[in-house]
């Protein structure tokens, strides 16, 4: 598996470490239903079989967080953007 790092170009996945699902957003701790939403945020996952947007950290490269779109059925990577520019 090779990840196209926006800074470094296509690099082996060995250079990266994996965090997980990049579609989660941290809830507002002041919200009235914050307890429920934090439970969902910390523990529940869509875990799709197919396209998955996920965080990888280019530890042995540019040391940037990268948002990668990868297919969990084939491991094919559709693209990668820097976390700071990812929406």
């Amino acid at each position, binding site marked *: 598996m090779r990840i196209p790092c926006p800074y470094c170009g296509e690099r082996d996945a060995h250079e990266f470490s994996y965090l997980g699902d990049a579609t989660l957003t941290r809830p507002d701790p002041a919200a009235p239903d914050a307890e429920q939403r934090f439970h969902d945020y910390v523990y529940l996952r869509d875990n799709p*079989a197919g396209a998955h947007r996920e965080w990888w950290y280019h530890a042995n490269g540019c040391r940037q967080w990268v948002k990668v779109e990868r297919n969990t059925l084939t491991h094919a990577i559709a693209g990668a953007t820097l976390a700071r520019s990812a929406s």
Partner: protein
Amino acid sequence: MRYSWLNILKNGLTGQTGWTPAWRDAAPKPAYDVIIVGGGGHGLATAYYLASQHGIHNVAVIEKGYIGSGNAGRNTTIIRSNYLLPGNEPFYEWSMKLWEGLEQELNYNAMVSQRGVLNLYHSDAQRDAYARRGNAMRLNGVDSELLDRDGVRAMYPFLDYDNARFPIQGGLLQRRGGTARHDAVVWGYARAADAHGVDIIQNCEVTGFLHEGERIVGVETSRGPVRAKKIGMAVAGSTTRVAAKAGLRLPIESHVLQAFVSEGLKPMIDGVVTFGAGHFYISQSDKGGLVFGGDIDGYNSYAQRGNLPVVEDVAEGGMALMPRIGRLRLLRMWGGIMDMSMDGSPIIDRAPVPGLYLNAGWCYGGFKATPASGWCFAHLIARDEPHKVGTAFRLDRFRTGHLIDEKGVGAQPNLH
């Protein structure tokens, strides 16, 4: 047909013509008392114990492919009960006890071999952690022995004791641990369940659930709808995909774990040995191949195959432990999809939808749990209350904070 030496003798003298299929190839009936989705070890064990322990014989096991084609046929066959936490240890010990009587109970040779599981430690801190785990086992009435370096050397003289980075200081030994033949476990449970009247329906994919109001009352399958009063899901690896059809979102990620078998060798490792400074475990099959594995790849995957960095990591672990395997060639390697739960422990509980029961989240430790998983899941389905050794495996523990995090790494499935 009962398997016995007399039957072997009789068939030997009559040209092996008297054997019958070990289970019927059942077609789905319109309705059952209980449907188990998933014909792996856990699902078949559940069906068997529903029939043998709870008198519920009108049961179907519905399997998408052939039975044992998932993780039941892809693991490294290790059985053990050397856990630390009180939520886990009594459950795995109950499993160990069931393993010990399994072949007699099922009348099937599952090749259960209590050859000992030895976890090596390589530092003072690790020795202390292992001593603690060994003591926790003993508090639960489970055998454990903390060996020093000489004790390990007497068992396995060929390990690399003076490795510059990871010298072996000793190990935690569970002599009752060992291995079993994974396929035979599946076949044995299938045959025994079938003898109790359970329908084993292969090549039948569950494509959805039948609802009546809030309640789930059956499954939609590739071979038509099948109704049941209760439905149990034992599809670890695909739990998210199947549960999504019932509208559930679960604390599970699917990850790929690789396993390896070397070319066949004369006997060289007579137990199970694990390397404590990395993640590497090895045993030798009766056919002679070394069976080993290491970490999961560490990213979400449903692909049943992994990548080279973990292959390299596993090989490095093996070389650090026992350099004599360096010139061996691999015969096969493969991947299986793990239900990685958020605390590294399984879930055996009622689903939030009435009529549906969950058996999931086995991470990469499901094989050893097969008998107790089936036992507890059958108990839960039959009586609607958890079995006493499985009370900790609740789905709501992530909400209440009663996590069972054996490794203590938090809600990060790829680190468990």
